[in-house]
């Protein structure tokens, strides 16, 4: 489906699919805490976060299906594409690890995705703008939840601080991808349809640096930066496993519904 023609519509389809994939994959990851979270209250909190994200994914998939114009629906796009066709950022597919790593991943990505959604809310494409606007409120809460938990863990005990730091080290290399401009999207940036990724980088770095200083966690010096997940579908080994679980039912029983 992700056509390689260099038309604005094809570029927008790829972009919208990417945003949808980000939400679906992160939502699936967060939902893996169901039944395993450190406290029952966090079980519920994590499933709420996951449901927000999957709801956002659904809206973006529906619009992607419309742009695609080949009679597919949101479920086709979510359940019947293989890992190499997914256009999510590498950061969101990384494994949960412990709760410290999970909230670090959620903070690093949500800070970016909230900025992206604020940009998309001003899009010249009305549908993108409407979906993004709805998601901003939800992402604000996600940011509050994840940054509060980073404070609690990192400022609470030495062990909490160590685990948050390890989470940061595991994830940092995957943050560079979020701010990489994509040549095929140049026309979308120019037309004000989507925000230019590199334009978000300074504000993101500033806020992350401020939080890390506040919670007494040294920044990561890691530079390695795999950046071909969103643009070319070159994912880490984790995405295939995640999709195997996420897509199993629809692959085994296509079209099955409740």
């Amino acid at each position, binding site marked *: 489906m992700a056509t390689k023609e260099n038309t604005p519509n094809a570029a927008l389809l790829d972009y919208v699919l990417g945003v949808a994939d980000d939400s679906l994959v992160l939502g699936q990851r967060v939902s893996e805490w169901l039944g395993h979270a450190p406290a029952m209250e966090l079980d*519920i909190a994590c499933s709420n976060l996951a449901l927000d994200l999957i709801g956002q994914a659904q809206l973006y998939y529906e619009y992607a299906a419309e742009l695609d114009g080949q009679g597919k629906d949101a479920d086709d796009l979510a359940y019947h594409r293989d890992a190499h066709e997914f256009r999510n950022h590498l950061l969101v597919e990384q494994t949960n690890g412990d709760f410290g790593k999970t909230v670090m991943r959620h903070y690093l990505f949500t800070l970016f995705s909230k900025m992206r959604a604020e940009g998309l809310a001003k899009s010249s494409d009305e549908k993108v703008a409407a979906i993004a606007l709805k998601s901003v409120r939800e992402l604000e809460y996600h940011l509050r939840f994840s940054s*509060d938990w980073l404070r609690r863990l990192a400022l609470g005990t030495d062990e909490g601080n160590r685990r948050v730091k390890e989470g940061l080290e595991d994830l940092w290399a995957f943050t560079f991808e979020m701010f990489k401009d994509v040549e095929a999207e140049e026309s979308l940036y120019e037309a004000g349809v989507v925000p230019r990724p590199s334009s978000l980088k300074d504000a993101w770095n500033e806020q992350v640096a401020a939080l890390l200083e506040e919670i007494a966690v040294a920044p990561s010096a890691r530079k390695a930066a795999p950046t071909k997940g969103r643009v070319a579908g070159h994912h880490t080994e984790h995405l295939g496993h995640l999709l195997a679980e996420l897509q199993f039912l629809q692959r085994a029983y296509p079209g099955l519904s409740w």
Partner: protein
Amino acid sequence: MSNQWDLYEVFIRSKNGTSHKHAGSIHAADANMAIDNARDLYTRRSEGTSIWVVRSKDITASDPGEAAALFEPAESKIYRHPTFYDIPKDVPNI
């Protein structure tokens, strides 16, 4: 969990103008976390516009053993209910 968080009682106001009503209880490490946890558990279906939380141990409750002494004397005092007045027809909301 070996170190159980404190128990908090949660009060939700469903809309402006009404009073906060007891919704249930949740565990949390402090009051801010209690607000978040209460939000996630008790306002998922748009039940609320405002949340109060208070540590359960900070609530002083009446002793069930004293219920008779505290509450039974009121039962025989029907004159405390404003039921002996004629309500004018034009004043519906008394």
